[in-house]
C-alpha cells in the first residue's frame, strides 16, 4: 500500500510534467527505451544532459558578459543546447532556447540576455522537478507507467 501510494505519487509527478508541458513526447520516447536491462536509462540520460547543458548554459552566460562575444559562437552553443534539450524532451527549456535564438539572430543583444535568463529559469525548474522524481522512482523501482 505504501508503495502503491508512492507509485501513485510518482505517476502524478510524471503526469504533471506533461500537463505543464515541461516535458514532451520525446521524454516518453526515452521512457520507452527503458527496459529490464536499463531500468534507469532515462535518469542516466538526464544526468548527462544536466551535466553538459549546465556547462553550456554557463558558457553562454559568460559569453553574454564579455564584450567580444560573437553571435556565431553564441548560436553554436545554443544550437547544441537545442539539440540535447529536444532529444530529452525538455519542452519548456527548448522553447526558451528557440526564442532566444531567434532574438539572437536579429542581433538583439539585450533580448538575447533576457532570453538566456529565461532559459536558465526553465532549466533550473526542470532540474528541480526531475531530480526528486528520479529519486523517488529509483527508490521504488517501479516499472515506468506509461
Amino acid at each position, binding site marked *: 500500500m505504501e508503495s502503491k501510494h508512492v507509485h501513485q505519487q510518482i505517476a502524478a509527478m510524471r503526469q504533471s510534467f506533461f500537463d505543464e508541458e515541461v516535458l514532451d513526447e520525446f521524454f516518453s*520516447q526515452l521512457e520507452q*527505451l527503458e527496459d529490464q536491462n*536499463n531500468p534507469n536509462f532515462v535518469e542516466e540520460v538526464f544526468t548527462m544532459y544536466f551535466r*553538459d547543458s549546465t556547462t553550456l548554459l554557463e558558457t553562454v552566460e559568460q559569453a553574454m558578459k564579455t564584450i567580444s562575444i560573437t553571435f556565431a559562437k553564441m548560436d553554436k552553443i545554443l544550437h547544441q543546447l*537545442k*539539440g540535447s534539450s*529536444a532529444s530529452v524532451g525538455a519542452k519548456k527549456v527548448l522553447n526558451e532556447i528557440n526564442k532566444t535564438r531567434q532574438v539572437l539572430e536579429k542581433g538583439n543583444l539585450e533580448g538575447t540576455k533576457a532570453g538566456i535568463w529565461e532559459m536558465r529559469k526553465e532549466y533550473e525548474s526542470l532540474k528541480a522537478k526531475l531530480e526528486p522524481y528520479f529519486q523517488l522512482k529509483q527508490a521504488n523501482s517501479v516499472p515506468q507507467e506509461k
Partner: protein
Amino acid sequence: MNVSSVKGSMSISSSTSTWKAGDTISDQFPAGLRVLVVDDDPTCLMILEKMLTACLYKVTKCNRAETALSKLRENKNGYDIVLSDVHMPDMDGFKLLEHIGLEMDLPVIMMSADDGKQVVMKGVTHGACDYLIKPVRIEALKNIWQHVVRKRKNEWKEFEQSGSVEEGDRQPKQSDDADYSSSANEGNWKGSKRRKDEEEETDERDDTSTLKKPRVVWSVELHQQFVAAVNQLGIDKAVPKKILELMNVPGLTRENVASHLQKYRLYLRRLSGVSQHQSNLSTIISAQDPTFGSLSSLSGLDLQTLAATGQLPAQSLARLQAAGLGRATAKSGIPITLVDQRNIFSFENPKLRFGEGQQQHMTNKQQVNLLHGIPTTMEAKQLVSLRHAAQSVGNMNMQVPPPGPQSSQNNPLLMQMGQQQQQQQSRGQILVDSTINHAPRLSSMGQPILSNGMATNVSSRNGIPENIRAPGYSQTPSMLNFPMNHASELPGNCFPLGSTPGVSNLTSKGAFQEDVNSEIKGSGGFMPSYDVFNDLNQHKPQSWELQNVGIAFDSSQHSNSLQGNLDLTQSALGQQGFSSGQMNGHNRSAAVASKAVFSTGDVKELRSAQNVNQHLNNLLVDNTIRVKSERVCDTSPANIFPDHFGQDDLMSALLKQQESVASSENEFDFDGYSMNNIPV
C-alpha cells in the same frame, strides 16, 4: 521495437536484387544492421545508441569524427550505414560525409537540430542519403535500413545492366529471398562486401525483379579465384568447365562461371576500349557522340573482329554494340568502354589499384565529384585529368605514342583515342559511373571502390546514359584495376558500371565487371575471359606486359585502374595474348579494357595488335593520368602517387606491347590473368 515490422516491409528480399546470393541476408533483416553513429553531444549519442539498439541494430558510437573515420578505415566492411551529426567540433559533418563517400561509399545520414533548408540542401549536395532533424524519433531510425538496401540495389542494378545480356541465363545461385533469409544475420550481413558481390555477380539481373533465381555473387575473392583459374588455363583455353574445376568452389555452377567468363571477356575488351573513353569523362556525357562515334566505330569494328575470330562471343559483341548503340550507334560501345575505362581508371586508381585505399578515395572522391557535378578542387583536377585522358583516348589513333611521362603517355594514348576531350569526359563519367558501380561492388576492396561505385551511380543517375554505354566495361576496367593490385578487393564492383544507364548497355561489360571483380579478388587481377582481348591479341601467354607497366603504376599508387590500363596496353603490345595472369589485375583491366576498346572500335584496327596496344597505352595513359588527377584530388596525401607511374616502365611496356601487339593482337585471353606474372 518493431524490427519485425521493418522486416516485414523489407520483404524486398527476393526482389531486391541487391541481396543476391546473399546468403548473408538473413530473414531478420534489418536486424543486425551495423550502424556507426557519430555525435559530439554525449546526451544525444547516448539516446541514439539506445534507440538504435532497440531497433535491433548493431551500434557503434563515436563522439568525434576523426575517431569515426579511423574506425571506418580500419574496418572497411564493418559497417553498413553511418549516422552523423552536422555540427561537430573537430570536423564538419559534411566533410566527414564526403570522406566517407569517397573512401567507403557507405550510405550516410546526417542529423541536426538545425532544420534550415540550406543545411538540408547541403546534406543533399554532399551526398547524404537522408537528413534527420533532432530530436530524432525512433521511428525514423527504424527505417534507415532502406538506404542501405537502396544503395546496394543501385549498385546491383548498374551491374546488372552491364552484364545483363549474358547473364540472363545465369543460374541463380541463391534466390534473393534466400538472401534475406540467410543464416540469421549474425549481426552483420555479410557486410557490404557481400552486397557488392551480389551486385556484381549477378549475371542475372536481379533487378529484373522477376528473376528470383539465386544469384551468385562474385565477390572479390571469388573473382580472383576465377581469374587465377582462367590464367592458369590460359585465356583462350579457359572453358567454364575447367575453370569451375580449378576454382573448386562448392555451389558454383558451370553456368555461373560461363556467364562470368563472358563478362570478364567483355570487361577485358572494354578495358582496352575504355581507356580511351575515359578521358572524356567529364564533359562528355552524351554530348560527344561524334567523338565517341569514332571510338565506337572502333569498338564496333573491334568487336566484330573479335567476334569474327570467334573469340568474342556473339553475345559480347552484341552487347558491346548494344552498348555502343546506347550512344546512338553501335560504335558507342567502344566509347563507352573507354569511358568506362576511364572511370575505371579514375576510380580505380583511387580504389584499389594500387592497393591504396586512399588513392581510391581520391579517385572515388573525384569521380564522385564529377558525377555530382559539384565542382571541387578535386573534381577540377580530375576533370582535367580526365579530360586529358579523354583526349588521348579519344584520339584512338591507335598509335602508340612514345611513352613519355606518364601523363604524357596517357595523353598521347588518349589522343590516339581520338576522342575529344569531351568524349573523354563523358567517358570519364561513364567510367566514373562504372567506378562507382564498382565501388560499391568492390566492397571487399574497401573504400575506394565504393566511391567509384558511387560515382558511377551518380553518373548514371545523372543521366549520362550514353556515355555509359559501356557499363560493363567501364566497370570492369575499374574493377580490373582493382583486383589487379588489390587482388582481393574488387568485389564485383567493377561491374557496377552496368548500372549506369549508358553503361548498362554493355551487358557483357557488366559481366566483366563481375568477373573482374571476382578475378581481381582471386588473382589480384581480373582477367575475366575477356574475349575481346582475345580477339584482339590472341595473346596466348597471359603475361600481361602491362602488368609490368601496371606494376609501375602500382608503385605510383595508382589505383588499379592504372594498372589495368597498363596491363592492357602491355599485354596488347607485348603479348600475343594478354597474359591475364600477369596483369596485376589492374593492368589487365586496363589492358583489357583498352583492348576491348580497340576491338570494338575498329575491327580492322583491332587486327593489329598495335591498335590494341595503343588503346592500351591510352588506357594506361589514361589511367596514369587519371590516377594522377585523382590523386591530386585526393585529400589523402598518401594517395598521391607519383606522377610517373613508372613511366619508364610504362613506356617500355607500351613499346613492348606495341611490338607484340602487332603480332598477337587478337587475342587477349585473359582468362584469369595472373597479374603477377606479366613479364614485361
